């Protein structure tokens, strides 16, 4: 009922305002504000008004292992992304190498988080848009089976997180040097059976969303993701772009910068040339699709829609579904190959300097950078979540998409704008916590 | 009544057959196995799952698994009890006990019928058998039996194992629950030897099992060896809790100020009650569904330490931690006896080890409800006055201008195996018997050292005996340094002058078993550099990297480059945490008073400060009356006392 507030709030006869005071079915609190004058978009804002939590300051003076537990709290949906990015950052700075089974368990954790996050978004947050419904509850009234299928997938993702991480939200098993404890094979046995089911559910998800009808909205965007020669990008890889960029993950600041934009309280990241760019499932499939699990690749091929992913952001729901196949199939392979590590963690020694890394959160590339002293204590931190990187692209797309809804009734036009925003699966809670406008941020690493 | 068959012997390899037989019988075998750094009781499939070669170090608030040295590497039961207890299987932490349903306008309730698996418990210790008997009495043999317990208990076969090792926290001997196990108290009883197990069966089930194992009869040697190793455990544990009259004494001290002091340390975490093998308190909660009106009543372990346990609408009747600790301790050692005719404690020591802040019931009971007088020691060689055994002076050497050490050989083995801090009476025909602390034991050579200060004519005569001289010795006498109280803690040893001599065997023992203790600090003070006894030892100790040592003298002569001043200056300003430390102090009474006062200021608790007192001693066994100190006879109850038990007698003049 808030959608459409402020209809025609503008003064002039040919000025229209599309305003959603509080966006729904997104994580966190954001506001949509679009102003059109004489069919020209004069203002397109995704305004993040959630109160800041100062995370980059909260981690100052803390040990690496404390940082792992603190940064989880940035996001209730993707805590593993924050924890793993920090773990990798510290380990790369301290020269720590973990055993292959430990690496496999961490990847398994990430698979669990992708499954849980993507299933949540596809079924509970995004699917209602394609069916013109306000929520999954209404969807369940029409087709309970579909919602149950989504909840089951989400459950299996959460179960992976619970077994390997202790609990789905804010897991406790990750530490610098490895894990606090590695599960015995028997503990993973129950998951194994569930994952056969999960792969099938994920494949069914691809078929389901391939049938979703979406607005036509073609646009070329600069795409950015990690790419790894041997595996679909999650924990590791180099930063690549559709423009041919190829950087070590620590070197994110060499290509990108964050800037303050008037009127919104979160930062926008852009390339140093000032270009907006897009992260997330579509970007990953486009740039790193060669490394897809065969089952995921086949699922995508079977839809015949692979070509639309790069250009139509409304197809991102398909990219997310394909990644559900990727994450479930890979999790199953990891379980089959699992050998319990001899020791869950290796000792490490802090080294002063810069600890930086990037991983692929469900929503896209996440970058962390910490300056640590001799004792390994963090003295300065920069965390760039995917949503603040996507924000410039989202606003650019809003402006580009707006003309196509101007002739629709106001409520429907607003609904479509909100739908567009959900295509990026924005995590506003994450983005809002990084209202770090310190001047040194613009210049990259000192 | 069947006459008990003699014990049989099962070679080590037979243990796997035992496990296999039990499994063939359709039983799940629950036995000890190492999980997450401790011995737990879980299902085992073969001896490979047992804690082979593992032993443990336990002290208040600390537990570590360690690899057994030497022959212990083969042993399956070379550990003492861990945090787990068998009640997990007889009285599980959570059990569904009833279901309620509201359907079609009627409400129905039905109990949940227990369907326990057939189990075999392998490795139940004496204290644990006693715990099962206690829970039998509470949950099975009372006016109303708990059906779940009864069914589970009936479904378990019990194979016991006698302890051949003891932890510093054990006190089964005081509670009368071990380490020996009577064959009737279990289906089968094992005693582990280096190459196998002595078997005794106590029930028909046990006899049948024993027969199927086809063991050979045990040799007399094997039986004797088994008896000796269990007896050794009994000796190591001693008798740390005075249970005689304890229920009444405790009831009389419900207003003791100590309860509030304990509450300052007590976390109220309930660990003691949950690791206790006899605690049986529970709460029932409802688990109800969201879709319908079905609900299940779940009974779960609770604890008198949790806030809701004694709560009514207006609040908790026992709202302070001190109330809760008092409830627990008095229940275990007093009111349990009223309710069930026996103590609620079996002396397993779990509540001592697994208290995160190391609160020790033995220590607290001794403070809150001390016995009227200390019980006499079991005195192996302390025969009547006049009953001396012969020994011979092997060698003598001067320690200081007025002190000489005599090395005595051919000493009665009981004396040569005495404890640090004990003393002997020494005499020669014509001389009065003189009490002298043993300043070093050589148990393997039946020899001891005595360091004698020539304070009077008799001691002067003894000091000047020539090698080869025979003399008479009685002992060992008195109570020595409580090394077991120091296990797992930092130890500070402070001596003044010849006061080092009675401490020397304690230092030997600390350093011989160095890993059992935390930081070891040795401080010695002497009047002048010349008055330092045991100079070689002082130098050796000071050179050890795992010892912090310091020395001082009152007056430095030429050549002394060390500190000058009173001994307390060596440690009163240092950066060390004394709160969990144990102190042993010996020297002139003034020096001991100053030292104890400094240690107390540093936060050492009075029951952990031990001093060796000097009094006129003649009989050595508390009969002649000379050595009285307050309520104690120093010869029998001391000479080593804790500061706490001495009370005012430690500081008052003329006592």
């Amino acid at each position, binding site marked *: 009922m808030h959608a459409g507030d402020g209809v025609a709030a503008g003064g002039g006869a040919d000025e229209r305002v599309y305003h959603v005071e509080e966006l729904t079915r997104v994580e966190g609190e954001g506001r949509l504000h679009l102003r059109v004058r004489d069919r020209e978009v004069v203002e397109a804002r995704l305004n993040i008004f959630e*109160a800041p939590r100062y995370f980059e300051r909260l981690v100052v003076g803390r040990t690496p292992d404390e940082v792992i537990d603190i940064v989880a709290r940035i996001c209730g949906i993707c805590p593993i992304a924050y924890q793993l990015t920090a773990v990798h950052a510290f380990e790369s700075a301290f020269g720590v190498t973990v055993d292959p089974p430990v690496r496999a368990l961490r990847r398994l954790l990430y698979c669990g988080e992708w499954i849980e996050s993507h299933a949540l978004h596809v079924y509970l*947050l995004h699917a209602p848009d394609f069916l013109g419904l306000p929520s999954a509850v209404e969807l369940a009234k029409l087709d309970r089976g579909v919602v149950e299928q989504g909840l089951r997938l989400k459950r299996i993702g959460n179960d992976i997180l619970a077994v390997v991480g202790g609990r789905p939200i804010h897991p406790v098993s990750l530490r610098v040097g490895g894990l606090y404890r590695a599960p015995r094979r028997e503990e993973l046995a129950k998951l194994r059976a569930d994952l056969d089911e999960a792969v099938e559910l994920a494949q069914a998800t691809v078929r389901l969303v391939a049938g979703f009808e979406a607005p036509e909205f073609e646009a070329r965007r600069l795409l950015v993701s990690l790419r790894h020669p041997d595996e679909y990008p999650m924990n590791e890889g180099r930063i690549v772009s559709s423009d041919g960029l190829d950087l070590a993950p620590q070197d994110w600041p060499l290509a990108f910068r964050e800037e303050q934009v008037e009127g919104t309280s979160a930062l926008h990241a852009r390339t140093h040339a000032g270009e907006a760019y897009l992260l997330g499932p579509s970007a990953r499939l486009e740039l790193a699709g060669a490394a897809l699990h065969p089952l995921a690749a086949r699922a995508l091929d079977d839809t015949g829609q692979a070509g639309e992913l790069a250009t139509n952001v409304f197809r991102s729901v398909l990219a997310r579904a394909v990644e559900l196949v990727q994450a479930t199939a890979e999790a199953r392979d990891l379980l089959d190959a699992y050998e319990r590590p001899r020791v869950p963690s290796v000792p490490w020694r802090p080294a002063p300097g810069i600890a930086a890394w990037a991983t692929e959160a469900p929503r896209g590339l996440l970058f962390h950078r910490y300056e640590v002293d001799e004792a390994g204590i963090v003295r300065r931190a920069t965390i760039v979540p995917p949503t603040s990187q996507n924000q410039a692209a989202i606003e650019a797309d809003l402006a580009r998409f707006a003309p196509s809804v101007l002739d629709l009734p106001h409520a429907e036009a607003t609904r479509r704008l909100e739908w567009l925003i959900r295509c990026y699966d924005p995590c506003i809670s994450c983005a809002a916590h990084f209202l770090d406008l310190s001047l040194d941020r613009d210049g990259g690493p000192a | 009544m069947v006459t008990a068959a003699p014990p049989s012997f099962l070679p080590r390899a037979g243990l796997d057959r035992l496990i296999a037989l039990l499994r063939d019988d359709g039983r799940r075998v629950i036995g000890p196995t190492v999980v997450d750094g401790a011995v737990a009781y879980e299902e085992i499939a073969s001896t490979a799952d047992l804690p082979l070669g593992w032993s443990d170090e336990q002290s208040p608030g600390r537990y570590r698994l360690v690899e057994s040295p030497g022959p212990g590497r083969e042993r399956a039961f070379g550990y003492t009890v861990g945090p787990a207890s068998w009640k997990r299987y007889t009285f599980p932490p959570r059990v569904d006990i009833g279901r309620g349903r509201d359907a079609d306008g009627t409400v129905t309730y039905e109990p949940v019928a227990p369907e326990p698996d057939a189990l075999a418990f392998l490795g139940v210790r004496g204290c644990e058998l006693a715990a099962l008997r206690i829970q039998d009495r509470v949950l099975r043999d009372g006016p109303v039996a708990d059906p779940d317990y009864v069914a589970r208990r009936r479904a378990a076969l019990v194979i016991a194992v006698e302890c051949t090792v003891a932890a510093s926290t054990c006190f089964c001997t005081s509670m009368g629950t071990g380490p020996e196990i009577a064959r009737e108290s279990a289906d089968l009883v094992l005693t582990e030897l280096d190459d196998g197990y002595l078997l005794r069966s106590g029930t028909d089930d046990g006899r049948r099992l024993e027969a199927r194992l086809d063991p050979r009869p045990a040799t007399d040697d094997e039986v004797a060896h088994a008896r000796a190793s269990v007896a050794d455990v009994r000796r190591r544990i001693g008798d740390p809790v005075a249970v005689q009259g304890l229920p009444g004494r405790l009831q009389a001290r419900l207003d003791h100020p100590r309860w509030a002091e304990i509450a300052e340390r007590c976390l109220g975490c309930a660990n003691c009650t949950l690791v206790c093998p006899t605690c049986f308190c529970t709460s029932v909660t409802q688990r109800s569904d969201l879709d319908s009106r079905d609900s299940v009543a779940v009974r779960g*372990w*609770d604890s008198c330490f949790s806030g809701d346990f004694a709560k009514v609408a207006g609040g908790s009747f026992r709202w302070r931690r001190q109330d809760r600790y008092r409830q627990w301790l008095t229940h275990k050692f007093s009111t349990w006896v009223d309710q069930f005719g026996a103590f609620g404690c079996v002396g397993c020591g779990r509540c001592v080890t697994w208290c995160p802040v190391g609160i020790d019931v033995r220590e607290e009971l001794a403070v809150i409800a001390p016995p009227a007088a200390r019980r006499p020691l079991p005195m192996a060689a302390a025969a009547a006055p006049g009953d001396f055994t012969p020994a011979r002076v092997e060698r003598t050497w001067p320690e200081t201008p007025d002190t000489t050490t005599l090395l005595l050989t051919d000493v009665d083995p009981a004396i040569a195996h005495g404890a640090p801090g004990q003393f002997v009476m020494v005499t020669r025909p014509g001389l009065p018997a003189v009490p002298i602390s043993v300043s070093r034991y050589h148990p393997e050579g039946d020899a001891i050292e005595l360091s004698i200060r020539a304070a009077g004519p008799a001691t002067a005569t003894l000091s000047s005996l020539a090698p080869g001289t025979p003399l008479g010795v009685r002992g060992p006498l008195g109570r020595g340094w409580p090394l077991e109280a120091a296990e797992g803690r930092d130890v500070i040893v402070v001596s003044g002058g010849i006061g080092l001599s009675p401490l020397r065997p304690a230092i030997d023992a600390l350093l011989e078993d160095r890993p059992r203790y935390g930081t070891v600090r040795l401080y010695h003070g002497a009047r002048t550099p010349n008055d330092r006894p045991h100079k070689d030892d002082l130098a050796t100790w000071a050179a050890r990297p795992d010892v912090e040592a310091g020395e001082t003298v009152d007056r430095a002569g030429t050549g002394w480059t060390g500190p000058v001043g009173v001994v307390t200056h060596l440690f009163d300003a240092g950066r060390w*945490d004394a709160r969990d430390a144990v102190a042993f102090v010996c020297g002139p009474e003034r020096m001991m008073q100053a030292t104890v006062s400094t240690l107390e200021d540093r936060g050492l608790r009075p029951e952990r400060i031990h001093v060796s007192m000097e009094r006129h001693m003649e009989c050595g066994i508390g009969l002649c009356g000379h050595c009285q100190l307050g309520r104690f006879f120093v010869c029998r109850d001391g000479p080593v006392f804790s500061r706490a038990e001495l009370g005012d007698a430690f500081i008052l003049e003329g006592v």
Partner: protein
Amino acid sequence: MPGLPLRPRVGVVKLTSCDGCQLTILDLEEELLSIVEAFDIVDFPEATSSRSSGPYDILFVEGSVSAPDQVERLAELRARSTLLVAIGACATAGGIQALRNWGEVGDWAATVYPDPSLLQVLDRVTPISDHVKVDVEVRGCPISPDQLRELLAALLAGRRPQLPDEAVCLECKRRGLTCVVVAAGATCLGPVTRSGCGAICPSFGRGCYGCFGPREQPNVASLVSRFELDGLAPDEARRRFAGINAWAEPYRDAIPRGGGARPELAAAGVPGETEAADARR
């Protein structure tokens, strides 16, 4: 607890938080469709675009109060709610972001933001109960799905929810876990922390870090002494409380000046490499 209608009208809203506690509602996957039948979810912006501004029979509030407009909003929400349930560490104790209460907010703002006047934040991050009457508090970071399920079942059944205020140790021992303080020298806040999580951290061989906040009758001083005996410098021992529930009494009082942050050039006694090397046997 006031009587509730047959199908209570429920709202789920947030203040400053990570969304994890309201996500826990969606994590009750098996029961979710039963829940929406038993309860009329009229407002839950994270999950539905149907909105309502009340009145609510039950209002779940996630997040801490950290901005001035939230104070007003909370008062309005309270006025429209019969039963107000605070969910999670942020709502019940201020959450991780309350660590900024140990700094000068102006200070922080000035070092972090070029134009602090843009910031609409309060000096102190506080729990909801500092501002309005709270009927039920569900603790945890995040809240436990089991406790949430229990609360919902109890609301339907008309009984007091079983949300015990006992120590984590009880759950730990019921699970048969080995005490990590005694057996591994871990710094575990379990003895002074409220149960509810299921003793997850000890099951992973690490000490509890206090997600559920202080239990009833916590003896923080004694636990700090124990940590010191294990070799932690006094400030380090006390800094263990500077976490998720730092602002909750008596954790708050134990925390040294500066909160969780170690001062520069004072790294001595910091558990870093040595602790990592003490990985469980």
